[in-house]
């Protein structure tokens, strides 16, 4: 059993504090993704778990053992680095077997483990090549193989896909997920790409400025963001946010005087005159007959479509509402001419109200 527990973990660089007291419980076999904009402390946190950075305060334990003062080699972890970090003077085979070689394992065992890892990752053809003779995707696979070979308690991934091109990234994403399903170890994965986080994670830890903002399953973060930062960071395109004021009749008056009803979920939490931000996703705003369910809590908005991006199964629509550019989605699309006026339907049960000042979400319960 290898849980990883962080309690009140702090990282200071001189007077600057990079990580502010993080608490996190990661279960055995869980795939946890730390995500956030650059400089949010996610890599630092990972490196503290790995033992590559000193822990300035708090406690990290792996499998119930406090590892604060253990060097990386005694933590039984493996790590996959952003720049692959292969040993340039060693062949793929030597790279894969290096950790076992250092541990003075018998040659037969090393060979078996290396061949096994090579088979999982499809590296058999490349065993005698040097890293310089490999493509980016192949190098990344070798780096992953090197991690597998040791049968570690925990895998740590530090932005492993950010140096690959888009197509390869998608491919490798699938391979990483398969790998997790095959070996079933605990994985802690750092990325700045919310798509990777959404697609890979059992649980996402969203960080900003050294704080954890929200922890939850991908769908929890997507559907119930705790504040506007989560709402705009998770999901593509980011959530539309419109500034407004709550009126007496239970609406939000937007900048141009137009009113939208306060979503059901937030109705009890707002008070008249409150400055709020009205949030909804593009997926929940569609032209009549092209998406959002016809029944349920619906608001209709008349929009002038400035721009459309056909994506095949859907078309992304750009319009301006109350001075803010917003996006909607048109399912089973038809051609759209720029400047066309459309009546769009907004699914109110999927809309959110955020406090304009604190940026936190307002919910009744």
């Amino acid at each position, binding site marked *: 059993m290898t849980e990883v527990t962080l309690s009140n973990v702090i990282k200071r660089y001189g007077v600057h504090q990079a990580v502010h007291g993080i608490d996190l419980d990661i279960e055995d076999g869980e795939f946890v993704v730390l995500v956030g904009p650059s400089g949010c402390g996610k890599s630092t946190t990972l490196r503290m778990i*790995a*033992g*590559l950075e000193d822990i300035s305060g708090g406690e990290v334990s792996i499998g119930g053992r406090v590892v604060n003062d253990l*060097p*990386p*080699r005694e933590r039984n*972890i*493996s*790590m996959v*680095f*952003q*720049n*692959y*970090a*292969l*040993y*340039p*003077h060693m062949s793929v085979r030597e790279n894969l077997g*290096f*950790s076992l070689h*250092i*541990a003075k394992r018998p040659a037969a065992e090393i060979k078996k483990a290396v061949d096994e890892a090579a088979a999982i990752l499809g590296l058999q053809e490349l065993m005698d090549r*040097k*890293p*310089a*003779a490999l493509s980016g995707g192949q190098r990344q696979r070798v780096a992953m193989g*090197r991690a597998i070979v*040791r049968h570690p308690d925990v895998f*740590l991934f530090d932005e492993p896909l950010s140096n690959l091109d888009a197509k390869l990234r998608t491919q490798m994403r699938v391979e990483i997920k398969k790998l997790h399903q095959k070996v079933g170890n605990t994985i802690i994965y750092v990325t700045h790409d919310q798509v990777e986080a959404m697609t890979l994670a059992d649980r996402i830890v969203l960080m900003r400025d050294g704080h954890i903002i929200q922890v939850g399953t991908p769908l929890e973060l997507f559907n119930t963001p705790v504040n506007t930062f989560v709402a705009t960071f998770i999901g593509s395109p980011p959530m539309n946010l419109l500034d407004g004021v709550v009126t007496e009749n239970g609406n939000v008056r937007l900048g141009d005087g137009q009113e939208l009803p306060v979503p059901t979920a937030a109705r009890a939490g707002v008070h008249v005159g409150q400055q709020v931000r009205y949030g909804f996703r593009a997926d929940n705003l569609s032209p009549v007959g092209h998406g959002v369910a016809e029944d349920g809590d619906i608001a209709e908005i008349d929009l002038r479509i400035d721009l459309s991006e056909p994506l095949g199964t859907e078309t992304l629509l750009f319009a301006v509402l109350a001075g803010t550019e917003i996006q909607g989605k048109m399912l089973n699309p038809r051609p759209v001419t720029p400047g066309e006026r459309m009546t769009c339907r907004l699914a109110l049960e999927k809309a959110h109200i955020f406090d304009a000042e604190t940026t936190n979400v307002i919910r009744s319960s």
Partner: protein
Amino acid sequence: MRRRLPEWFVLLLPAFVVVAAVVLIPLLFSLYSSFTPYKLTRPSTLWTWIGERNYERILTDWKFWAAFGRTVLFLTIALNLELLFGLGIALMVNKVTRGQRTLRTVLMFPMMFSPILVGFQFKFIFNDNVGLVNNVLQSLGSDAALPWLVDGNLAMFSILFAEIWMSTSVFAILILAGLFAMPRDPLEAAKVDGCTPWQSFRHITLPFLMPFIYIAMTIRSLDVARAYDIVQIMTGGGPARRTELLWTLMSRTGYVDAKMGLANAMGYVSILLSIAFTIFFFRKLSAARAELGMGG
């Protein structure tokens, strides 16, 4: 109608002329003179062709071979110790976080001195009467006045000491450059893979530094193989030729004994030594680079 010279030839002509004047002609001249009994005091001897007699004489001359062997020994000891010290210094300086630039500059001071001055300095330091070393030894209670520059072995040691003092920083600087160029990731990967600091150094850092080490070796082997100034100042090849290296022997033969033809022949034989070392280290360098995937 006169045929004009091709344009490329005309454009390159000045370069040809200069190279011929400063390199080619002296080279050919010295090669020619090594087949003559050319004595500086009797210029007409230049026109007497004696074939390979000079070379025969050298190859059977134990004094030459003693100097040759001593030079190889000197070279081997100096290069290895310089590598060892240079590596150590570079690794330590690389760890320094504050004042590293200053330290790097200080490191290069010995290289800025003229070898002649270094020679004089160490001649004083090792002097058996008034030298610093014996002074220190005596104030520590030893009665001995060690004959640093008179005893054959001690003199060799003293010269090596001066040479190493002056040139270790060549290794240190080049290896430090290697350490700076070294990517951090593989070292971190090695830590995670279970390496102790020594294993990281042995398996990751050192292979990466090898090309830099071989470059330093190549440069220094050429330098040391023509070691002359420090030796000439400190011992003059003496006492009784016990610190005679190839170049002090050559200069003695050419200028003191005025046998320029013979000295030139020695020069050509000893060039083989430099060529051999250069080829050796270049092969090593290419191999090390290929190993790192840097291409031939």
